[in-house]
C-alpha cells in the first residue's frame, strides 16, 4: 500500500504537496479506460502539475519526456494509470472539479493534508469513500538519516531516491555549481511515477542551506 502516503514533513511544508492518482481497477473497469485517462491527462496538463510520470516509458517530465508523451504512451499498458503531483491547492481543486464533471468513473485518490483534502471534496461535492492513514515509521529508526533528507527521499514512495543523491545535490548547490531548482529537478529523476514534488524539494533544499549558513 501506499506509495504516495508516507511523506514526511511538517504541516506547513505539506501544504504545498498533493499527489493525485487516477487508477482503473484491474479486472473491473480497466477495459476502455485508456481514452478516459487521456482526457484526464489533458485536464492535469491544463492545470500545470509540478510533476507527472509514466509507468509506460519509465520516466517523468524531468527525465526527458513531456506530458504529451505521458498521454501518448498510456496505451502501452493493459491497465493504464496516471500519477502526478501539485504544489498549489487551487490547481488540485481545478483538476478535481473537471474530473468530477467528466464523470469518468475512474478511481481518484488525493494524498495530502487530511483537512485540506476533505475540504476539497466538499467543494466539489463528493463523498470521500476510504482513507489510508500513515502511522509513521517503526523499528530501527535510529538507522535513518536526518529529517531533512527524509523529507526529500520519502517523496519517492518506491524508495528509489537515495540519501546519497540528496547529499550530493545539496553539496553542488552549496559549491555554486548548480541552482537549487536544478538540484531539485535532478532529485526528481529516479522517481518514475513522477510524484517527487520539485517545488517542495526546492523549498526543503533552500531551508536546509539557509540553516547551515
Amino acid at each position, binding site marked *: 500500500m501506499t506509495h*504516495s502516503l508516507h511523506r514526511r514533513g511538517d504541516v506547513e511544508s*505539506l501544504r504545498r504537496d498533493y499527489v493525485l492518482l487516477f487508477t482503473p481497477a484491474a479486472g473491473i*473497469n480497466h477495459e476502455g479506460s485508456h481514452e478516459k485517462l487521456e482526457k484526464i491527462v489533458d485536464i492535469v496538463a491544463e492545470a500545470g502539475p509540478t510533476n507527472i510520470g509514466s509507468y509506460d516509458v519509465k520516466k517523468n517530465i524531468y527525465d526527458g519526456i513531456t506530458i504529451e508523451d505521458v498521454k501518448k504512451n498510456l496505451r502501452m499498458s493493459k491497465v493504464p494509470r496516471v500519477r502526478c503531483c501539485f504544489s498549489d491547492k487551487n490547481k488540485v481543486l481545478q483538476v478535481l472539479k473537471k474530473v468530477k464533471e467528466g464523470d469518468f468513473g475512474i*478511481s481518484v485518490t488525493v494524498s495530502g493534508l487530511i483537512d485540506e483534502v476533505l475540504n476539497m471534496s466538499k467543494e466539489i461535492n463528493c463523498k470521500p*469513500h476510504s482513507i*489510508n492513514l500513515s502511522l509513521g515509521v*517503526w523499528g530501527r529508526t535510529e538507522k535513518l538519516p536526518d529529517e531533512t533528507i527524509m523529507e526529500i527521499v520519502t517523496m519517492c514512495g*518506491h*524508495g528509489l531516491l537515495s540519501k546519497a543523491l540528496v547529499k550530493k545535490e545539496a553539496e553542488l548547490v552549496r559549491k555554486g555549481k548548480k541552482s537549487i531548482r536544478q538540484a531539485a529537478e535532478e532529485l526528481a529523476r529516479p522517481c518514475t511515477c513522477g510524484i517527487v514534488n520539485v517545488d517542495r524539494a526546492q523549498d526543503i533544499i533552500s531551508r536546509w542551506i539557509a540553516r547551515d549558513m
Partner: protein
Amino acid sequence: MRIDQELCICCLKCLPYCPVDAIINGPEGVYIDQELCAECGTCLRTAGCPTGALQEPEDVYKEPRSVRKFFSDPTTTHKETMIPGRGTEEVKTNDVTGRVKRGQVGIGIEMGRPVLGTKMTEVEKITMRLAQMGIQLEHNNPLFYLIDDPQKGTLKSWVKNERVVSCIVEFEIPFDMLKEVLQAIKELANEIDTVFSLDVVSRFDENGNIPTIPVLEELGICYRPNAKINLGLGRPLREE
C-alpha cells in the same frame, strides 16, 4: 545489476543514485555488491553511465533474483496481479473493488521503507506472527505467492536470503481485531533489524468520520496529518 569491468572508466557517476548503497568504489574498481543490490534498476535508468558498463543480467527475472526485481522495481508488473511494484491497488480503487468494507480495516506493514530496505527473513518475522494470529495475507499482493506454509507464515526457502527495497505485508482484519493487531505490531517493531512504515485503511463512516482514530488514540499511536483519500469517484461504486 552488474558493472562490466572492461567498460567501466571509474567516473563514479552512478554511485549516488543507488538507493541501497550497493555500488562500491573498491581498490579493484567499481563494482556492485550482489548481496546489497535490490535490482531496482535505478542506476541503469537514471545515472547515465557513459560507457554502458552498467548492465542488467537476464537472471534478475529468474528465481531467486526475481524477488529483488519485482519487489524493488516499480517499472515491472507482476504477471499474477497485473499491478506494478510491490503492492496492490489497495485504497486507490477501494471505491470500485470494495476490498476494505465497513467493519473492516486494511493494514499495510511496509518493511524496509524508508531508506533501509529489508531482507526477506525480516519480513518472515512479521508473516509468522500474523499467521499465529490467524491472519491471512492479501492474495493480490505478490508476497502472497512467496508464502510456503500459510498456517505458519513461513516463506519459501529460496526467497529468504533475498533483499528488497521494500515489501508490503498487507491484510484485512475485522475492525474489532484492530487493537490486538496493532499491539502485536508494536512488539514486532522491537524484533526486526530494519524499519517499516505502517498504515491503516478504512471506509469513512456514514457521518464522514474516520473510525480508526479513536482506537489509535486509545493505544497512544499517532497518525500523520497527511493521508491518502479515495474520493469515491470510481464506478461502479461499491458501497459495501
